[in-house]
């Protein structure tokens, strides 16, 4: 034991455990006969914290003990490790978004009436998280359901100056008979279809 530094054993244990370790946990790495006294542990913690200054991790004391954690400064790179790249949005979500845009303020119940199927809580949450819709109030009916409307972020994302830039309901209904939707790429939406989103999108 003498030739292996206590701070190295502590570092090894914190790295291998993957959870915070209390002083007692660390003491239990040693048989009773070999267990260093508490002051040695304190000194080793100080040494380890000092070593970490040149490294991308830091020694933190949290409620349940000591742990090593990646420094926040490494977020720009490390966050990419954890990025989830979600697939495309479901059709149900896009329908819900469109109904909210055209029918705002509207409730989940009304959306369900129009779509003829239930709207999952997940869809509403995703749209709220994305910042495209907001609850603007409650409808005074039993249950007081939330009324949803679109946000300025919604307009920004789709490159609309105002909601009136969306094609009118009449225009959409008139085009129902046309099999092709090219007609939808009308001047008013030209901006959206020229897909400036892609440039706008950079995270």
């Amino acid at each position, binding site marked *: 034991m003498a030739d292996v530094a206590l701070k190295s054993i502590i570092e090894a244990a914190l*790295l291998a455990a993957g959870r915070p370790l209390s002083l007692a946990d660390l003491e239990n790495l040693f048989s009773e006969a070999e267990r260093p006294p508490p002051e040695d542990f304190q000194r080793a913690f100080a040494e380890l914290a000092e070593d970490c200054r040149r490294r991308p991790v830091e020694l933190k004391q949290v409620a349940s003990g000591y742990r090593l954690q990646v420094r926040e400064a490494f*977020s720009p790179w490390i966050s990419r490790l954890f990025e989830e790249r979600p697939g495309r949005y479901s059709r149900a979500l*896009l329908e819900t978004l*469109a109904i909210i845009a055209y029918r705002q303020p509207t409730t989940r119940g009304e959306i369900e009436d129009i779509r003829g199927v239930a709207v999952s809580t997940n869809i509403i949450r995703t749209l709220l998280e994305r910042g495209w819709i907001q609850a603007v*109030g409650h409808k005074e009916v039993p249950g007081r359901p939330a009324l949803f409307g679109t946000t300025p972020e919604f307009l920004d994302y789709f490159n609309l100056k105002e*909601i009136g830039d969306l*094609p009118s309901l009449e225009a*959409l209904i008139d085009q129902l008979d046309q099999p092709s939707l090219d007609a*939808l790429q009308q001047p008013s939406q030209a901006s959206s279809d020229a897909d400036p989103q892609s440039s706008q999108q950079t995270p």
Partner: protein
Amino acid sequence: MSGSQEAAQGADIVAVVRGSPVTDVPKDLYIPPDALKVFLEAFEGPLDLLLYLIRRQNLFIIEIPIADITRQYMAYIEMMGELQIELAAEYLLMAALLAEIKSRMLLPKPVEASDEEEDPRADLIRRLQEYERYKAAAEAIDALPRLERDVFEVSVDASAIEVKKIYPDVKLKEVLITFQEVLRRAERSSSHQIHREPLSVRERMAGILARLRGGILVPFSELFQRQEGRPGAVVSLLALLELGKERLIEILQDEPLGPLQIRAAGGADDG
């Protein structure tokens, strides 16, 4: 791990029989009945047992003294039978094979085939060699430094790392196409009428409700923006009327001809 087991690990125990460790495999054939079962269970099969018998005599596999080994092997098998210990079929099969090899070796070789005739032991030797090779390979794998026993994966807390969420791209056209599909369905069922209020009125309705959040009272006049001009004022007015009609707002007036105040329906308790 119990204390007795830990203590026993120091010595080369072969088996634990009724609580007492057996530290050596008996040199001769006499094995206490209880130990015999444990002893045999320590083997992975007839090939393993044969290998043990051969190696115990410090012999090469290719020199396998078939008569001798067969005798020893049979003796174990018979003892097991006497003790009515159930033997895996493979052990009996091997006994038959050994007996056959032994008998073939005793037969006088036909003169004309003397050179061609394969040693009756050849196939068994090949199998023993191959098995021993993999037995050694298993031991080699077991000796490799392995995770959870010798080396340990590391991980540190990454809660300080801010994770950006990546969202899917959506084109307005996709939204409109799906909405058309909704309209198409609605038209077919025709039970749902989609109102044709101008969009800007609907949005203004939502905008006004957003301003009224928290149940605050807002003067009527503040809901009109001078810079929007006349069209803007019309939109706001239509939106207010529509909200009133849908009972989403309350329009209050303290005294006749007094200023109008607006608040969300449901009053001040509105979160």
